[in-house]
């Protein structure tokens, strides 16, 4: 697939603070790309440079092969859905949706026809003559979406589209927006700080931190193979701890963590024997073993004492002291073979298993070490 958006070495500073630092990114046609990161990471500035609201200090923006860096927003074939929707308060719903069409050189009746169609699509035909303030937040969002889409942009930009919604509506809208994306096949670029939202909705996610791109990938790639401990921790919970490399065998790196030996399948990494590395294990990848269970030699088997239990409804979180610096957190689904009744109580010694492929290893840990208990 062709690239619809290409960013080349974009840099933007505000009053000496570098908001975006030399980022390059390709976004494919029809893709749902999410820019994810904490506030101040530069994701919104990047989106605004694509929309034309900020002019980059350095670098170029290409849209559909055309260099648009010097084009004003009103000349770019993109439309944005603003964070608080930015509906014109002095216009009706129909006037809001038709606003960008009258300019596009359409006749009055053509505009009216397209507005009617758009209103029907978002099921707000009966609100055509209402002012935005008379609509619910969810309806306002649909109007904002319709207003951006009637212009038939090549790319739809969404700036924190869910931030104004409550938790329940947010989930519904995530699904609706995802369906809409599939249905119309348009390129969506969304900015969010909500990692669940990013994982649920996107084809690919760009993770940014301090003005730079940290990792780009599909949600599963990012979740299963985070590039560094920061991402591992940012995208869902993870057990992150420092271990020492004991030896490197064919296809596995063997590490020591307290009295435990943990093997990882990180074949592409070559840490020196004796060096300190960071390991990350997702809580749900740790399997509680029945007392008499046996596991193949290749699977990690760790023993420890349960220190606490937290009931989460569909699952139980256990903290397991395995003799290292930090206890492991285990997410135990209650519909698995071991029911809640059969759960070992706090204080009991148990074994857990984890596949080497579920253990992620990070080298060069110096900059991350301070963030975690080591």
């Amino acid at each position, binding site marked *: 697939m062709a690239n619809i958006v290409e960013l080349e070495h974009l840099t933007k500073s505000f009053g000496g603070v570098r908001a975006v630092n030399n980022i390059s990114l390709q976004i494919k046609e029809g893709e749902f790309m999410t820019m994810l990161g904490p506030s101040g990471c530069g994701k919104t500035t990047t989106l605004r440079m694509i929309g034309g*609201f900020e002019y980059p200090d350095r670098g170029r923006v290409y849209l559909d092969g055309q260099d648009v860096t010097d084009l*004003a927003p009103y000349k770019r074939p993109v*439309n*944005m859905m603003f964070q608080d929707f*930015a509906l014109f308060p002095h216009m009706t719903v129909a006037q809001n949706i038709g606003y960008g069409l009258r*300019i596009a050189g359409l006749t009055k009746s053509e505009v009216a026809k397209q507005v009617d169609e758009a209103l029907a699509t978002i099921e707000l035909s009966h609100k055509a003559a209402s002012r935005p303030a008379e609509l619910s937040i969810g309806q306002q969002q649909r109007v904002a979406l319709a207003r951006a889409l009637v212009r038939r942009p090549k790319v739809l930009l969404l700036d924190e589209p869910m931030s104004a919604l409550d938790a329940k509506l947010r989930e519904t809208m995530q699904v609706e927006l995802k369906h809409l994306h599939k249905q119309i096949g348009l390129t969506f670029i969304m900015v969010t700080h909500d990692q669940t939202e990013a994982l649920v909705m996107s084809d690919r996610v760009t993770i940014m931190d301090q003005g730079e791109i940290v990792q780009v990938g599909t949600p599963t790639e990012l979740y299963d193979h985070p590039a560094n401990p920061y991402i591992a921790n940012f995208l869902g919970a993870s057990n992150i701890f420092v271990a020492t490399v004991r030896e490197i065998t064919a296809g596995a790196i063997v590490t020591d963590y307290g009295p435990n030996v943990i093997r990882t399948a990180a074949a592409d990494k070559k840490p020196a024997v004796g060096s300190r590395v960071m390991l990350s294990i997702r809580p749900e990848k740790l399997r509680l073993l029945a007392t008499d269970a046996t596991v193949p030699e290749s699977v990690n088997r760790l023993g420890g004492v349960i220190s606490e239990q937290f009931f989460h409804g569909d699952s139980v979180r256990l903290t397991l002291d395995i003799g290292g610096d930090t206890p492991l957190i285990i997410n135990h689904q209650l519909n698995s073979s071991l029911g809640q009744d059969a759960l070992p109580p706090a204080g009991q010694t148990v074994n857990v298993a984890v596949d080497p492929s579920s253990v992620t290893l990070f080298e060069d840990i110096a900059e991350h070490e301070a963030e975690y208990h080591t």
Partner: protein
Amino acid sequence: MNLAQQRRIGFSALMTGPIIWWLVVLLVPYVIMLMISFYSKQFPFHVPDFQFGNYFKIFDDPQYYQVLLRSLKISALVSVVTFGLAYPLTYFLVFKVRSQRVRMIIYVATIIPLWVSYLLRAYTWKTILGTEGILNSFLMWAGLIDEPITIFLYNQSAMIITMAYIFTPYMVMPLFASLERIPRNLVEASKDLGVRRMGTFLRVTLPLSVPGILVGFTFTFCLSFGDFISPQLVGGPYSNMISNVVASQFGIAMNWPLGSALSMVMLLIVVAIITLSDRFERAGRLDLN
């Protein structure tokens, strides 16, 4: 005495002053003025009566209704000139000045003349526009004229300039407040939807600043309409405003009934304008968050 009674007494004690003040300096004078406006003039003073002759005279004698019309015209011109100067200035302040500090400095500098005596500010223009004034001195120094020009001072233009200067803060304040309330992302959304700068201004910024424009116009119009100083200081022979006529009726003409009737007409006009502007403002009131 229970708590409710204590509160009532406390409240009454607090409100007695303001109520007496309001009665004595506002309501009573209005009532007296309204009554006198129906009295008859009778040498050497006037006698109680109930007749509409004074009002009739205002709309019959050109001497009075022409002054009334001139006052309306000059107030309208002052409002338009003030608006023409204040809107671009305020727009520039709110949308173009990026530094919050610089914006506040310019804003306060615009407002600060309000702290200076009105009389002094009006008088200043005499020294600028007069034959010995700054403007003439400058033009002579620049060699553009050989002798002082008298057309700058003592005419309606001088009055309009003076009043526009004096009432600029009253226009800038409401405009500033209403322009500042317009969310920036509305302007961005308009551009995003393909509308250029001018179209965005005409279709988004200007309509959303209408409340400020209305308040600004109401302030400047009503203040100019009642102005008494500028006609006296910088106005010429045909620059008398309604307030000057009222003053002379209560002064040398010793015709209090006519002066009162003129005052009542003025009051009605001002109240009508305020009501109208309030009605429009309410009709167009929008929720800008």
